[in-house]
């Protein structure tokens, strides 16, 4: 074996090792983050953490019940607004999206997908908070829905496009009108994929903070009124994490662990849906 050939093989082996190590580093980052969350947060997870509301700064104890309920309300409301629009837009793109309007909508969806969430936050502020005169959970949900729609639209489109044409042709040949073909045959076949997209979308907005800073604002008290300012886990983590008290830091880690758990459950559920049904998605 010539020296040159040997050198080339050594370079190849070395670079293979380098990219393997880089992959290991990326996974290590995830392990370190999740590991610290569990190590620092798990010990604070007790009954009172989940059922009590925050108590005045400086005292120890208290919980984040208001933030947990607030997160659920705000996210559910955002999903209620965002999912129908997102799925409908996605169906439009897949079914009628070959023309100029389709191209425009697709491009706008991609542009909005990359829009910083803080910009969406101040947009929602001008749109809802300023006219209404006060902060509200509703305005927070609208901001989150705006973030969600383009993402849901694009994944829905992609999933619907995966449905084979023969299915559509078979339904049309049987005399089904197009709208029933689209809803009963096409959308239903792609249901697992669409559902995955929705779960992923909800998982993403559940952890958002920036769009809620000037809309939902946060609230020290327990409330279920969507016209009032409302606390979420993400806002609570921001306040406690950057605050001066050790007790707050402890609660911030615990709340971060809970929020991470919530997001992970949604993300894993999305994966499970894909696996369990014909694997139409990847």
């Amino acid at each position, binding site marked *: 074996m010539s020296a040159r050939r040997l050198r080339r093989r050594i370079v190849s082996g070395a670079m293979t090792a380098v990219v393997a190590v880089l992959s290991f580093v990326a996974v290590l980052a995830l392990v370190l983050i999740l590991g610290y969350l569990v190590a620092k947060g798990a010990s604070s997870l007790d009954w009172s953490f989940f059922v009590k509301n925050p108590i005045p700064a400086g005292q120890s104890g208290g919980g984040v019940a208001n933030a947990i309920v607030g997160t659920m309300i705000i996210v559910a409301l955002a999903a209620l607004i965002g999912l129908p629009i997102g799925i409908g837009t996605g169906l*439009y793109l897949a079914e009628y999206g070959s023309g100029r309007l389709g191209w425009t909508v697709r491009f706008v969806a991609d542009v909005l997908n990359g829009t910083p969430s803080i910009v969406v*936050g101040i947009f929602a502020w001008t749109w809802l908070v300023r006219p209404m005169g006060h902060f509200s959970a509703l305005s927070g949900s609208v901001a989150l829905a705006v973030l969600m729609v383009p993402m849901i639209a694009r994944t829905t489109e992609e999933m619907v496009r995966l449905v084979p044409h023969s299915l559509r042709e078979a339904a049309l040949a049987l005399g089904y009108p197009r709208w029933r073909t689209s809803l009963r045959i096409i959308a239903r076949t792609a249901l697992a994929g669409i559902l995955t997209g929705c779960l*992923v979308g909800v998982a993403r907005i559940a952890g958002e903070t920036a769009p809620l800073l000037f809309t939902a604002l946060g609230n020290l008290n327990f409330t279920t009124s969507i016209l009032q300012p409302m606390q979420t886990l993400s806002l609570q983590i921001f306040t406690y994490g950057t605050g001066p008290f050790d007790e707050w830091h402890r609660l911030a880690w615990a709340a971060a662990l809970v929020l991470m758990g919530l997001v992970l459950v949604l993300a894993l559920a999305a994966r499970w849906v894909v696996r369990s049904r014909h694997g139409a998605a990847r």
Partner: protein
Amino acid sequence: MTTLPLGPPPATQAARAVIPGRPVLLGRNTGDRLYRAVLTGLALSLPLLLVALVVELGASAWPAIRRFGFRFVWTSVWDPVAGVFGAAPMIFGTIASSLLALLFAVPLALGVAIYLTEFSPKWLRQPVAFLVELLAAIPSVVYGVWGIYVLIPFLRSYVVPPLRAVLGWTPFLQGVFYGNSLLAGGVILAIMIVPYIAAVSREVLLAVPSSQREAALGMGATRWEAVWTAVVPYGRAGLIGAVILGLGRALGETMAVTMLIGNRHDIGVSVLQPAYTMAAAIANEFSEATTDLYLSALFEVGLILFVITVAVNALARLMIWRVARGTAVGSRAL
């Protein structure tokens, strides 16, 4: 609504070809028209939303735009009391922290993508890809908390001292390191954008035809040479697109950066010093903006941030489309 100039989908065309005399039967009954109208209405909401966003931001920023003109972008005085606003430090900080993030994230993400598509054992691909993409699922504010209590102490104890010992003479490592700094913000941003760059790069590399690899290997190239001379150049446009997409993410990232970058309104080249970003400025100061001009200045910051990210994202999309045409590569959250 149905008069919009839209081409019929392929299935209808096929059906029409079969029944040439009666094309109107398909896609023209009331249910179909209603269905199409409803979907079109929903789809139109997106362009309308974008228009509303631009108009609202523009209108709210208008007083500041008229008052300061282009001075806003390149002057550094930010004095709410005197009513003078120049956003140069935040624009500088936004770009500096994002480029710093790319410096760390690009080798890491490309390494992951190349390893997973070209070298790793098959059984490892899906799990590792999933774990790396999970990084994208971690909320920004959680990154922030982790950054404050884990990353910054780590940087202070194990990274900055050796870095100083070797490169302390450069202007980039001057000043006292308190923790919150351009470096901390850049590192956290890097971790946050790795999953995006890695996921898109992986799909780009997967889209490279295997004949490229086979041809190189057949000519006697080693495996690495095949990757580096045949596969990567073929997907170059898409890979650059992936990196630009990551840049777009980094530019607009808010919470983690706000918590780590130090929020100092100043331009400095030392990465150990605190800095500021546009997103952080809005997050910190929006609720404190007491005068209309102050608020308007923050809206102008938001508008500039929006325009920059839109331009960067559009560029990224066009480059990715050149390789993986028309697919929604990178539009997913995970």
